[in-house]
Each structure stands twice: as structure tokens, then as C-alpha cells.
């Protein structure tokens, strides 16, 4: 396929020539599926669109030609801008529109009736389009689908949902060709399998990876603290770096850290350099303002989190600073890709470890980047909660034949091994609820018609199904506004965080200190507060964990005992660990116990991945509960688990006995918060629980009851129910790892190094900052309740009665 004349002229006029991989994409435009692996800045998106622009250049195609799907709304906006230039200037007869959650109802309706040539959308919006009865007409002439950032989508359920939608599109438009655009990944074959119609092959096209990135730790005047996550000590050095570069992106691992850092960066910014902040909890208006300023080149630096992670083109970024250990090597490499969007210039990135343990993590991550090993855990077993949602989605569009749909689903890579029985379970769940007690014969959601096809019993149910489409489960958040002052929106905080606030507490929001005034109709009302230091330093945010591969490297580095590669301060810190306690050794288990802040702590260094460490936390807390040690909770990372309770652990060995973990956890596991959380997410995706829509929740009414009640009820009366089986599958996949814990316990046996300390050890200190604490609802909670109740009654002067 050759470039059409107007487009060729457009390129020639600018002195541009196609990159080799762009030319090859054009040459292989007729492949049924094709995966392009290219570094950020390699003209990846243009490579994806060249065949489309070429095929549409003569103006003969009517209707939808190419569907572009990206994980981010902002990316769709960005691509629309980037396509507009060549289309307008080459005078191509091509209409491009986007369709995301922000698109108006009228526009959406028109797009289904009269689709543009190129439609830019997200997986959720695509699922919604497929759920309409006119989907067959909308997608009839579709020729190509371009899935951008497919490596990011392939990691989760959004990708699974998208691939199920693709299987539907393939039926509606049999000639559909698939193109995936991916950043550099370790196992492209896995992504190719994910993209292609099973069992079709999917060729992989690799672009020149470009020059190696210039990446190192940022040199700082002050040493990082022993513990801490914000990187505040490095602010003068970061500010210096910002001054020396055109535009700097400063990434943080959590919103809370980004907020705190931005706040202090601003206080130190004596020259008033234009610096902005961008993260997912900010109000949309605030985010759009920052994005616009960034595109216009008005900002010298932007403090950001994962909401800026994916391939948005932010113009002339020449430095990326990562505050805090990158946790995942892959995200580090992709973040580095933000810098220098010119293909042949090396990107420049500097790491700022936030504490001394993170120095170790950073050294390990830098090693991994140099070795070219990327981590990543891809899934090949399609989750069934997503399948349940897909079946309901298809039913909204019209009656379907179960066997045809089953075959379609099996053409999706992750679902290629799905059994008919497993499919039928999902169909039965969508139709009847799938209960042992057949209670809903009259109210079935799906009915089998006389001709054997399935369809909605009541077409009005489609509305509810559509409202619940999508696989992103947000934690419940509350909007934050200034009291009075026209109720200016500031952003959102998690409901759990809001619940811990008392009037007068100060916290950071949008880079400023605000004072909590009260809750009004599910809005957190705050007032501005002139103080510089917030009282409540943090709010919850996205949880990052170190990848297992990186944890392995860290363990090796610690075990080797050769700390020469480290800056002085970190070497001193590790030496101090050796003086105060000891280092974890292979084949043995280091256990530290110490009191801190009125609680007794036990820290176990297992280095076997967060899932396994979490399972170990469950096992240990169960045995502590049985032994009357009053455990209160635990938090797991990839290298250790920290348990706290009311009483000290003096004997570690009995807690670590391997007499059948599964049996030991029976009953304990199902009652645990981890399982209930997993159930809730799966139940929302599968359609058992409606999402809480803003506006639908009302404060004055008796609120809907918690999903925990449904979970407990199912366990009691219908323990074999599909939702419980899915919950268990999900837990095994995401949170529970029996195998590695058993291996650990068998390897260690009685080789336990128990060090009893009078205070927290250097190595354990960072664990106190980990997110994702799991509460234990045992006897200790009851004891604490009784004490607190007595205190409250005395304080109020109420006599016990």
C-alpha cells in the first residue's frame, strides 16, 4: 500500500520521511492482526493510523472505518488533535470524532446513527455502543480497530472486556483487522495472543528501540530519611533540576505524596516558576486547566501520579523525575518514555528514593533497566465476572444464540480454554441469579425464547445493565468543596478517609492546606487554612507494590552484603540494621518483634511476593488470635509482612508451623476483609450489585446495605454459588498465594532468627508507610470498643446504666 498523493505531499513539504516501522505497518495493512512494539515517541500512533488515512483518502468509504480504543479519555482527545493536522492540511475527506464518558447524549445518539470515519473511544464506551440494538448497523462497515497502549490494557479486566467486545465486533464486521500498539514489553507473544482472534496467528513488528535512556539517581545535598515516602528532603535539588531543564515531569507513586510534595515545592519556589499538579482525585476542571497549560508550554514542571502515566503527548518534556522507588520496572521505563519525545534523543530520568530502603529498591530497578529485564504479570485465564457482564451487555443489543456466543467468546485469547459448562454457569447467573433456590422464575433477567435464543425478559432492564457496564471499580469517594464561597470544587477523597476526620483536622487537597468543617449531603466541606503543616498528613490513594522480580533483586542485594554501590547514608543505614538486628538470610526467616506507638509488632521478612506475604499475614494472625495474642491487623509488601496487635509475640516458631495452610485458613480466610473486598468488586462487575451512582445515593434515607451482608448470606445458604467461586478464583489470582507460603515454611522449618527489639528496626521502618492495611476483626477489636465506649461515656458524664 502506498501513501496517497496528498499525504505524501504533506510529509514531503515538511521534510519528513516515514520511520521504517511506519512504512512496514502500511505495507502489512492487510494482516488480520498485527502487533507493533515501539518505544514512546516512536511515532507509534501515526504508524497505527497510516493505513486508515491511506484507505480513506479517496473518499469512497461511507460509515465507520476505524475504531481507535485507548485506556484514557485524555489520550483520545490528544489523538484527535494530532490527527486533525495531517487530515486538514493534506485535505483528506475524513471525519474524526471521539466518544468517551464526556460525550453528550445527543452526540452519542447521532454517532450511532451516522458514525464518523474514525471513532476514538475507550473500552467502556465501546461496550456501551455494543449494547445498543443498532450496534449491527453502526459497526457494519468497520475495517480496522487500533488498540493503543495494549500492554496496559492487557494487565487487567478492562482489556478482557475490550477483547470480548472485539469478538462481538468481528461477528458484526467479519473483515475487521486488528492492530495493537504496545510499549516495550518482556513477552510480546503474550500480548499478541491476547490481541488476535484465537487461534489466528498475530505477527509482531518491532520498531528500533532508540538510544538507551540516561537514567540515574538524583544527587541530593541531604540524605534521605530512614522512613518517609514524600521525598521532601530532595526539594532544593529537584527545584535546581527544574530550573536547568525546559519542562520536568515529577512522578509520585500516590496522590497523597504528590499533594504533600507539591505543597512544599511551592513553598520553596521563591522564583515562582510556573509549576502545576495533576492527579486523578482532582476535580475535572482543575485537571483540564493543568493539561491545557501543559500543552501550551506554560508550565516548567508538573507534579503528577499515574493519571499522566500513559502515552499522552505533553510536548517538550526533557526531564522526568521519579520520587519514591518506581516499584515496577516497567512503569519506570514507560515514565522515562515521557521525556524527550524525539525518537533519536536519549530520554533523561532521575530517581529520588524517598527513604533509605528505597535507595536499595532504586539500585535494583536501575540494574534491571540496564539488564533490559522488564517485569509484568499477564493473565491468560479470562475472569468470569467480566464474562457475566459481557453476556448481559450482548443481551441488551438483542436476542442471541448461546452456542454462537460461546464460540465467539472462545475466539478471545484469554477465554480460549473456557469450557461450555463454565460458560453456561455464567449464562445461568445472568438469567436467573444462579441460586440453588430457584426463587426468581418470574423475574428472570434473561428468558429463553421458543426458538431457543436468549433475550431480556423485560427490555427496560437494559438501562440498568448499561449503567453498570465497565470493569473499573472506584472506591467510594466524596467530593471536597469549600464551605460557602459558591462551593468551589477541589477534588475527591476516599469515603474511608473522610470517616476518620474530625472537625478542625487539616489535610492537603490540590496543593493547599484545608480544614475539615463537616459533611453535608455526602460532600466534604472544608475551609482554607493558612497553616503550612497539615495535621493529617495523608489520605489513601492508589496502592503500588513492588513487583516480585524486583523483590528478588532486593533480597539478593541485601544478602550479598556488598553495599559499595550505595550512597554513604544508605550504607550506614544498612550497617545499622546489622548492628541493631540482622539481615535476612536465604533459607532462614528473619523475625523481628518490637513495641511501637502502644502496639506490639511482629515483622517477618519472607521476600516471596506480596500475595504470599499477605497469605502469611492471614495465617499468622489466625494463629495469634487462637493463642489470645489479640492481633489487630497486618500489612504486606513483596518482602515482608508487618503484624500488629495488643500483646507481644514471644514464640515465633508455633506461628510458622506448616500443618496445612489451607485447612488452617479455612473459615478465617472467608471472614477476612481481603475476601470481602474481592467479592464486592467481582459482584459489581458481574452485575449482582449496582454501582453506587453519585446522585443515586441519598443521605437522608436508610442507605443500601453493605455487600458484606450478601457475601455472608451466600456463604451460609449457597456456598457453591458462582459468585463465591469467582471470588475464590480472583483471590487466588490476585491476593492469596498458598504455594509460595508453603514452600517458604518448608524451606525455613525451624530456622527462624527471632530478634526481640525495644523499638522499630531500620529495615522495618518503611513498612509503617505501606498502604493496604488489612484489619483483623477479632477479640482485640471488641476489647478496644469496650474501652473506647467507657471513655466516651465518662467524657460525656453519662452514668453506666
Amino acid at each position, binding site marked *: 500500500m502506498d501513501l496517497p498523493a496528498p499525504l505524501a505531499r504533506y510529509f514531503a513539504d515538511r521534510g519528513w520521511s516515514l520511520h521504517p516501522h511506519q512504512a512496514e505497518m502500511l505495507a502489512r495493512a492487510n494482516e488480520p492482526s498485527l502487533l507493533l512494539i515501539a518505544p514512546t515517541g516512536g511515532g507509534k500512533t501515526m504508524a497505527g493510523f497510516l493505513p486508515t488515512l491511506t484507505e480513506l483518502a479517496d473518499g469512497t468509504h461511507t460509515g465507520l472505518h476505524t475504531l481507535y480504543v485507548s485506556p484514557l479519555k485524555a489520550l483520545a482527545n490528544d489523538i484527535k488533535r494530532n490527527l486533525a493536522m495531517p487530515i486538514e492540511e493534506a485535505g483528506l475527506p475524513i471525519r474524526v470524532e471521539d466518544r468517551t464518558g464526556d460525550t453528550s447524549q445527543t452526540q452519542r445518539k447521532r454517532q450511532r446513527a451516522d458514525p464518523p470515519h474514525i471513532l476514538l473511544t475507550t473500552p467502556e464506551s465501546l461496550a456501551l455502543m455494543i449494547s445498543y440494538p443498532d450496534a449491527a448497523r453502526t459497526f457494519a462497515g468497520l475495517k480496522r480497530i487500533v488498540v493503543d497502549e495494549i500492554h496496559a490494557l492487557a494487565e487487567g479486566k478492562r482489556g478482557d472486556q475490550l477483547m470480548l467486545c472485539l469478538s462481538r465486533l468481528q461477528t458484526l464486521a467479519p473483515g475487521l483487522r486488528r492492530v495493537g500498539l504496545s510499549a516495550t514489553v518482556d513477552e510480546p507473544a503474550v500480548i499478541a495472543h491476547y490481541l488476535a482472534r484465537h487461534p489466528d496467528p498475530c505477527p509482531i513488528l518491532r520498531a528500533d528501540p532508540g538510544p538507551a535512556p540516561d537514567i540515574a539517581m538524583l544527587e541530593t545535598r541531604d540524605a534521605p530519611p530512614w522512613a518517609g515516602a514524600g521525598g521532601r528532603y530532595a526539594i532544593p535539588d529537584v527545584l535546581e533540576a527544574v530550573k536547568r531543564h525546559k519542562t520536568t515531569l515529577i512522578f509520585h507513586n500516590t496522590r497523597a505524596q504528590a499533594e504533600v510534595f507539591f505543597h512544599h515545592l511551592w513553598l520553596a519556589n521563591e522564583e515562582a516558576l510556573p509549576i502545576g499538579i495533576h492527579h486523578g482525585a482532582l476535580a475535572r476542571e482543575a485537571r483540564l486547566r493543568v493539561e491545557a497549560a501543559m500543552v501550551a508550554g506554560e508550565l516548567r514542571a508538573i507534579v503528577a501520579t499515574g493519571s499522566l502515566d500513559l502515552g499522552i503527548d505533553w510536548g517538550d518534556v526533557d526531564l522526568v523525575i521519579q520520587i519514591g522507588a518506581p516499584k515496577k520496572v516497567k512503569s519506570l521505563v514507560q515514565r522515562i518514555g515521557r521525556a524527550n519525545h524525539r525518537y533519536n534523543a536519549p530520554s533523561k530520568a532521575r530517581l529520588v528514593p524517598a527513604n533509605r530502603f528505597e535507595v536499595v529498591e532504586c539500585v535494583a530497578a536501575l540494574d534491571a533497566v540496564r539488564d533490559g529485564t522488564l517485569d509484568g504479570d499477564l493473565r491468560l485465564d479470562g475472569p468470569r465476572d467480566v464474562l457475566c457482564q459481557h453476556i448481559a451487555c450482548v443481551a441488551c443489543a438483542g436476542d442471541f444464540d448461546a452456542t454462537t456466543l460461546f464460540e465467539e467468546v472462545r475466539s478471545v485469547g484469554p477465554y480460549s480454554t473456557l469450557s461450555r459448562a463454565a460458560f453456561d454457569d455464567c449464562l445461568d447467573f445472568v438469567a436467573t441469579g444462579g441460586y440453588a433456590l430457584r426463587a426468581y422464575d418470574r423475574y428472570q433477567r434473561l428468558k429463553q425464547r421458543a426458538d431457543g435464543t436468549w433475550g431480556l425478559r423485560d427490555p427496560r432492564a437494559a438501562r440498568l445493565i448499561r449503567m453498570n457496564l465497565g470493569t473499573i471499580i472506584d472506591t467510594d469517594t466524596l467530593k471536597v468543596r469549600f464551605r460557602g464561597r459558591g462551593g468551589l470544587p477541589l477534588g475527591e477523597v476516599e469515603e474511608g478517609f473522610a470517616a476518620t476526620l474530625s472537625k478542625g483536622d487539616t489535610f492537603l487537597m490540590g496543593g493547599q492546606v484545608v480544614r475539615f468543617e463537616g459533611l453535608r449531603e455526602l460532600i466534604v466541606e472544608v475551609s482554607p487554612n493558612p497553616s503550612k503543616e497539615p495535621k493529617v498528613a495523608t489520605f489513601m490513594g492508589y496502592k503500588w507494590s513492588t513487583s516480585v522480580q524486583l523483590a528478588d533483586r532486593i533480597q539478593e542485594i541485601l544478602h550479598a552484603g556488598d553495599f559499595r554501590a550505595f550512597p554513604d547514608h544508605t550504607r550506614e543505614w544498612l550497617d545499622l540494621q546489622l548492628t541493631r538486628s540482622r539481615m535476612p538470610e536465604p533459607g532462614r526467616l528473619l523475625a523481628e518483634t518490637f513495641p511501637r506507638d502502644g502496639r506490639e509488632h511482629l515483622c517477618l521478612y519472607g521476600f516471596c511476593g506480596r500475595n504470599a506475604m499477605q497469605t502469611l499475614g492471614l495465617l499468622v494472625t489466625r494463629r495469634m488470635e487462637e493463642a489470645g495474642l489479640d492481633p489487630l491487623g497486618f500489612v504486606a509488601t513483596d518482602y515482608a509482612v508487618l503484624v500488629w496487635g495488643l500483646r507481644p509475640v514471644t514464640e515465633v516458631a508455633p506461628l510458622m508451623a506448616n500443618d496445612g495452610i489451607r485447612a488452617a485458613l479455612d473459615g478465617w480466610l472467608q471472614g477476612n476483609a481481603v475476601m470481602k473486598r474481592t467479592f464486592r468488586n467481582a459482584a459489581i462487575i458481574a452485575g449482582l450489585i449496582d454501582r453506587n451512582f453519585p446522585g443515586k445515593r441519598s443521605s437522608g434515607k436508610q*442507605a443500601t446495605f453493605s455487600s458484606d451482608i450478601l457475601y455472608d448470606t451466600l456463604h451460609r445458604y449457597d456456598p457453591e454459588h458462582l459468585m463465591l467461586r469467582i471470588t475464590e478464583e480472583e483471590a487466588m489470582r490476585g491476593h492469596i498465594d498458598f504455594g509460595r507460603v508453603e514452600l517458604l515454611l518448608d524451606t525455613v522449618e525451624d530456622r527462624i532468627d527471632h530478634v526481640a527489639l525495644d523499638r522499630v528496626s531500620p529495615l522495618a521502618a518503611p513498612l509503617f508507610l505501606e498502604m493496604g492495611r488489612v484489619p483483623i476483626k477479632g477479640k482485640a477489636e471488641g476489647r478496644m470498643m469496650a474501652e473506647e465506649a467507657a471513655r466516651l461515656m465518662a467524657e460525656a458524664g453519662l452514668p453506666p446504666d
Partner: protein
Amino acid sequence: MRDDHAFTFAGHAMVARASGALHWPSEGLLVVSDLHLGKSDRVARDGGALLPPYEVRDTLARLAADVAETAPRAVVSLGDTFDDMAAAATLAPADRDALTVLARGREWIWVTGNHDPAPTGLPGTAAEAVTCADVTFRHIAGDGPGPEVSGHYHPKARMRLRGRAVSRPCFLRDDARMILPAYGTYTGGLRSEDPALAALMAPNARAILAGSPMVEIPMPR
């Protein structure tokens, strides 16, 4: 751990039970409120989610346990026994039988609520309100001087412990008024801080948290 909480209300010795039931031993009275039987059925009928259809069975099992342990002379269901009238009509025969067995040999009074004007075809009698000694039992708190026991609001209270918050259905009480928690398995709660509840209860009101352990705290507001 205590699984019930004894207290004095308007001069009478009463017991709040972990299940959310109120027991008045000297009168042989067991009071439960807001059973909302048939909620899953009603949600499905309205085209909503197909929830696990076991909540009637679960609610009645807990009620049977309370009846067995307190052996009351009379049971009062304080309104909103059924999620709606249709739910009362479609009660499964097994559940109907279970209720009949429970009501055998004792007085059973269905106070009418806002969801269920008067249940039909069940043992017992319907009433808008019941009075026992000087205490009036009705569904929604009234304007009278009391003493009075009601339901309707599904109160719940939250305690902040260090690092965690515990939220439970609760009994609210002051000198003249008591509001019972919802007893039904599929019932949510209304925070005690809600203006509707704050307006009803005196400043010295207390909340007794149901569940285990039971504790009494000043009503959070």
C-alpha cells in the same frame, strides 16, 4: 464478651439483644422492628439485581433463636415487617409455616408500618400501636411525651477506634424515647448523625451498638 445489654428505660428493666431485638423480661415481651421480609423479591420484581434469595430464611432463623432464648409471652413486630404488600403476598410457604410455628402459644402483634399497612393471612393481630404498662410501641416516633419505642429509621452508629472505624446498627435511647435498629438481614442503616435522628433524640441520648460485643456510647451526633 457480652451478647446483650441490660438497661433501664422509663423505669423499666429492659435488655437490648445483639440481634437488634428488644426484650422486656418482666412483661415477657420481645420487640423487633423493620424485618423487611421479601426485599430480594421486591428488588427483582422491580427489575433490579437478583440478590441471594435467602434473607427471609435468615431473618426468621435469627428471630426463632431470639424467641427460643427469651420465651416471650408476646412478640411485637414494629412495622415494615414486609418490604412491601406484594412481598407479604408472595412469602414462600416454608417461611409462612416457620412464622406460624413461632407464633404458636403466644400473642403476636403486627404493628403497621409505612411499607406494610397490615399483613394478611398470618397468625396474630394487626395494630397501629401497642401499649404495655406506660410504654407505647409504634412504627414511627410520634410527638407525644412518651415513653415510646419505635423503629423506622434503621439507626446505626459509628465508633472511631485508633486506626479504624466500626459501624453497627444501634438502639438509640433517651429518657422518653427509644428507636430500635432494623432487624432484617437485608437492611441498611441511617447514621445517628443524620438531622432526622438528631432532632428526635434528647442531648443526653445514648446509642447501644448491636452485635458482639455490645457497648453503649453517647449518641454520636
